[in-house]
C-alpha cells in the first residue's frame, strides 16, 4: 500500500522550533490522562493527586496538555478554531510549570507537551493576541531590562549597596563566579536584603564572587515562558555579550527562573555559560566544611521544589536528530533524544542544607521533586490572572499545612512571593521562608 501521510511534513531536525513542527505530536497524543495527574506510581492520595494547575482550576479538557495538543490540531491544522476566546485563555493560562511534561514522559518517548504549550503562546504573541498585562511586561523588558512593572534600569544595582563585591563589568576585576540576582532579588526591597544574605553566605564560604553592577539585566526567562520569544532572545543575546566582554564564565544565581533560563533556554540558543543555583554552592560548602552551622534553628519545615530549579532544572543536552520509523511503524529518534523526565533537577542540595541545620526538621509534602505542585507564579499568570494564581498557591499552602510543618521553605523568589500571604483552604496562613534565611540564622 502506498504510504499517505496526514500532512506533507518535512521531518524536523533537532528540537522543534515552531508550532508546525509539533504537528506529529499533536496527532500522536493518546488522551491517556497522564498530563492531569501526578505519575500514577507516585500518587499518594486522591486529595493531592492532580499535577496540572491549569486543568485543576478550569476543569475543561482544553486547559490540559492534551487539550492544548488537540487545540493545536484545531487551530493550526484544521482551522476549526480561531485565535480568540477560550483558545487564548487556555493558551496563556498555562503556568509552563512542566508538570504535564514529566508525567507524560513516564510512558511516552515522543511527546513534548511543555514545549508545545510555549509554542502556542509564541504564535499567539506573534499574532498580537497576548493579554495586555503581558504586552506591558514585554515593553518594560525592552525599556528597563526588567519585567517587573516599577523597575528602573538605573536602580538595578541598589540591592548591593554596602556589599564589598568585585565589580566585573569592566573586566578589570575578575572572579570565579558572577552573582546574578535576577529582577525580584534586585528590585523587591525585602528580597534585596535576602540577596545580600546570599552574597554574605557565599563570601563566608570562600567563594570568589563578583557582580555586574548596573550592567546586570533581566534573564528574560519570563518572556520565554509567556511566549515573547523575540524579546527573550534579544535579552539572552545581550546578556551573553556582556558576560563575554566581562570575561564571565560562571554564574551563580539565587533565582530559580534565572537558573532555568540560563541553563536550558540560553543553551538552546547556543549560549555557553556555566550556571549554578546558590543552593548548590551552599550545599557544597557545607559538605566541604567551609560553612559550619553553629546555632540551632528549632523549626519544622516543608520544602517547596520550585519548578524551574527542580523538574525544569535538568542540564541541557544538545541534540540534532530526526524521526525514523523502524519495524514498520515504531517511532524512534535517531540518535536517542534527551528525555528531560525531570528527575535530574536540583532536589538534593536544598534538602541537604536543611538536614544539616541543627534543629530544622524537614517534613515532605505529597507532591515533591519532579512532581511538585507549582506555586502559581509560572507562565506570567500571576501578572494577568491573580485570582487563578492565588488559587494555585492556596492549594500548595493547604498541602504544606497537612504536613504539620510550621513553615514552607523555598529557593525561588517567585515562589516565595506567590506563596506568602495566601490563605489555605482552611482560611489560615503559613510562614514562607527563603532557605538562605535559615542558613544565615544557623551560621
Amino acid at each position, binding site marked *: 500500500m502506498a504510504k499517505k501521510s496526514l500532512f506533507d511534513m518535512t521531518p524536523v531536525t533537532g528540537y522543534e522550533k515552531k508550532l508546525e513542527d509539533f504537528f506529529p505530536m499533536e496527532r500522536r497524543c493518546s488522551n491517556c490522562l497522564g498530563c492531569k495527574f501526578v505519575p500514577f*506510581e507516585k500518587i499518594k492520595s486522591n486529595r493531592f493527586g492532580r499535577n496540572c494547575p491549569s486543568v485543576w482550576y478550569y476543569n475543561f479538557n482544553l486547559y490540559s496538555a492534551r487539550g492544548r495538543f488537540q487545540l493545536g*490540531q484545531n487551530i493550526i491544522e484544521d482551522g476549526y478554531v480561531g485565535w480568540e476566546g477560550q483558545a487564548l485563555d487556555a493558551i496563556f493560562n498555562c503556568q509552563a510549570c512542566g508538570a504535564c511534561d514529566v508525567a507524560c514522559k513516564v510512558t*511516552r518517548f515522543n511527546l513534548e507537551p511543555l514545549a508545545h504549550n510555549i509554542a502556542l503562546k509564541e504564535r499567539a504573541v506573534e499574532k498580537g493576541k497576548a493579554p495586555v498585562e503581558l504586552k506591558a511586561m514585554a515593553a518594560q523588558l525592552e525599556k528597563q531590562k526588567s519585567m517587573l512593572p516599577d523597575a528602573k534600569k538605573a536602580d538595578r544595582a541598589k540591592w548591593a549597596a554596602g556589599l564589598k563585591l568585585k565589580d566585573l563589568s569592566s573586566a578589570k576585576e575578575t572572579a570565579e563566579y558572577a552573582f546574578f540576582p535576577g529582577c525580584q532579588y534586585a528590585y523587591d526591597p525585602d528580597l534585596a536584603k535576602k540577596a545580600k544574605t546570599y552574597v554574605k553566605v557565599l563570601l563566608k564560604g570562600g567563594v570568589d564572587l563578583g557582580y555586574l553592577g548596573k550592567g546586570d539585566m533581566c534573564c528574560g526567562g519570563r518572556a520565554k515562558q509567556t511566549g515573547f520569544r523575540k524579546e527573550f532572545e534579544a535579552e539572552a543575546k545581550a546578556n551573553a555579550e556582556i558576560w563575554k566582554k566581562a570575561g564571565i564564565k560562571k554564574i551563580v544565581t539565587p533565582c530559580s527562573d534565572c537558573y532555568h533560563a540560563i541553563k536550558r533556554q540560553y543553551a538552546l540558543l547556543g549560549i555557553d555559560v556555566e550556571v549554578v543555583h546558590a543552593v548548590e554552592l551552599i550545599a557544597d560548602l557545607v559538605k566541604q566544611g567551609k560553612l559550619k552551622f553553629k546555632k540551632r534553628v528549632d523549626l519544622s519545615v516543608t520544602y517547596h521544589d520550585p519548578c524551574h530549579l527542580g523538574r525544569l532544572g535538568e542540564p541541557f543536552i544538545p541534540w540534532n536528530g530526526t524521526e525514523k520509523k*523502524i519495524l514498520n*511503524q515504531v517511532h*524512534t529518534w535517531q540518535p536517542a533524544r534527551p*528525555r528531560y523526565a525531570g528527575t535530574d533537577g536540583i532536589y538534593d542540595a536544598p534538602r541537604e542544607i536543611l538536614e544539616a541545620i541543627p534543629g530544622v526538621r524537614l517534613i515532605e509534602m505529597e507532591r515533591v521533586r*519532579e512532581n511538585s505542585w507549582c506555586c502559581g507564579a509560572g507562565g506570567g499568570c500571576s501578572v494577568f490572572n491573580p485570582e487563578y494564581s492565588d488559587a494555585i498557591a492556596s492549594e500548595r499552602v493547604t498541602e504544606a499545612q497537612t504536613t504539620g510543618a510550621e513553615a514552607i521553605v523555598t529557593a525561588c523568589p517567585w515562589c516565595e512571593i506567590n506563596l506568602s500571604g495566601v490563605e489555605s483552604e482552611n482560611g489560615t496562613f503559613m510562614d514562607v521562608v527563603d532557605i538562605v534565611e535559615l542558613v544565615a540564622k544557623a551560621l
Partner: protein
Amino acid sequence: MAMSKDFYRALEDIVGARNVSCDPAVTENYRCITAQSSAHYGPYATRTPKPLAVVLPGSTEEVQQIIKLCNKYKVEFKAASTFWAAMGYIGSDNAIQLDMIRMDQVEIDEKNMIATCEPFAIGGTVSVEAMKRGLNCNIAGVGCSSSTLAGSSGWVGFGPSSIFMGIASENLLGAEWVLPDGEIIRTGTLGSDGEWFCGEGPGPSPRAIFRGWTGTAGTLGVCTKISIRLHPWPGPKWIPVRGTAPAYFADGLDCVRAYTVCYPDWDAYAESFRLFYEADICYLAHRQFNMFGRDIKTAMVEIFTHPEKQFCDLPALMEDPYIKEQNEQMKVDVQIVMAGFSDRDLDYKEKAFDEILRQVGAHKSEYYLQQDIEDFVKLYLLRLGRKNYNYTLCSSYEGNFGLSGNVFVAAPLMEEAAALKRKWEQTHTGVAAVGGDSDMGSVSGIGGGGTTGWEFFVHFDGFDLASIEDSNAHIEETAAWMKEKGLGTDFGRWNADARKPDGYNYSQAEHDSFYEKLPQPAMAEYQWKIREAFNPNHLTGSYYKTLTPKEFRKGKK
C-alpha cells in the same frame, strides 16, 4: 446546529457561567479523534460530532437539572469522565457533552469493605485510598487512569486483578443513577454510615438493567455515584517506589511475589489457568508484556527498566542472543502475582504455584526473576498506571482477535491468529511488525467458568493515514476470520454497530436492520422496551442495542 439562547442560559443557571461553554475552542476539544483512542470500531481518522456545549456539573442535583432541561428542549446528552474511549462522546449534532471532572470524591468504608466513588475518581486514586486501609480494588485492564465508576457501570472491566477481585459486573454494589428522563434511582445502601449493605433489594434487578454484562456505555442516563466491593490488600499503606522515570520499581514489597510463567504450548497455558483459578492462589494474573509483540517484549521491558534506553535501541536489543533466548522461552507466557496474607499463606501459594507449573510442564522465566525486573512487574501490575504503554510504540493501538470468553476456546486458535497478524505485518507496512502474537489479557473473573478477556494489540501511527487505514483493514480481516471460526464479533468491532465510521449515532431503523439478524433478537427487543421506559425521548446515543419489536415496526401500535 444552533443552540437556543434560553437553553444555554438555563445551563448557566444550573452550573454557573464558568462551568459551561459553547466556545468553539472548548467544544472542538470534546470531539474524539477515534484513531487516537481505542474505539473498538475503527480506527478512523474522523472525529465525533461537535457538542452544542460542554457542561461541568458539580453534583447529582445539577446533573438531574441538566437532564430535565435536555428533555424539555429535546437535546441529547452524554456524560464521560476521563474521555479515553469514544463511547463517552456524543454522537449527534444536537447534543451536549457532560464532563464529570468536578465530581471526583472517594469514600472508603473500611468496615464493610466498600468504596463509594464519584465519576472522576480514577482507579489510581481509589486504590491508593483503599490501600491506606488494607484494601484494594479491581482496576480494569484499561488502566488506573480510567474512571472506576465508568468502568464499573458502563463497560466489561476485565483486568489483572479480576482473578482475585472480579470484573466490573462482579464488583458493582449500589449506584446513584440519574435516568435519561431526570428521575434519580438509588440502589443498595451508599456511604459509610450504613450498617447493612446489599447491592440490590428483592424483586427485579435494577442492576441488570443498569449495567448487565458488558455495560450500557452510558446510554441509560448518568451514573453519579457508585459503591464497589473492595478486597483485602496485605501490603503497606502506600507502595514504596524507587528508581527514576520511567524505570520505577516497587521497593521492598516482600509480601508480594511476581513471576512470569513460560509454557511449552497453549494447552498447558489453558490448563494452568484452570488450575490457578481452582487453587485460588493469584492476586493478579495477566498476560501483560506480550502486548508489545512476541519478538520485542523482552527488549521493551529492558527499555522501561533502564532510563537511558530508548526505542532506537530496539534493533540492537532484539539481536542480543540472551534477549532472543528469553523471547523464545516466553513465546507462550503469563505474568502471575501472588500476595501473602501471612508468611505461611505465601509459602503455601508458592508451593501450589510450583506444583501447577510442574503439572503442566511450565517453568518460571529466569529473566523475570531478576530483582529489578520482578519489582518493575509488581509495581506495573498492582498500580496499572502505564495505560499509555498501549500507545507508546507507535502512538495508537486497537485490539483485535479479542473476546471475553473461555480460555479453552481461545487458546487453540492463538497461533493461527498470530500467524494471520504476522502475515499482515510482513505484507503491509501500516501495522508495527512485532512478531504476530501481541496478545494481552486477563486470566479469569471470580465467577470462574474459564472466562478470560484478551485482545491482540495492533500498533499503528495515528499521525499516518496509511497506517490508520492499514490497521483498520487488518482488523476487518481478523473479524471475518473470527466469524468464520464461530467466535462471534471481534472485540475490535464490538462498537461497530454503535457508532458510524463518521462518528455519528446510528438511527433506530439502521439498528433494526442489524439486530433483526441477531441469533436472539428478542434480547434487543427487550432492551427496546427498557429504553422506551427509561429513555422515552431517546437522548443518549446509540450504544444500547435496541430492536423495535415487530408489532411496532409494522405500525401495529
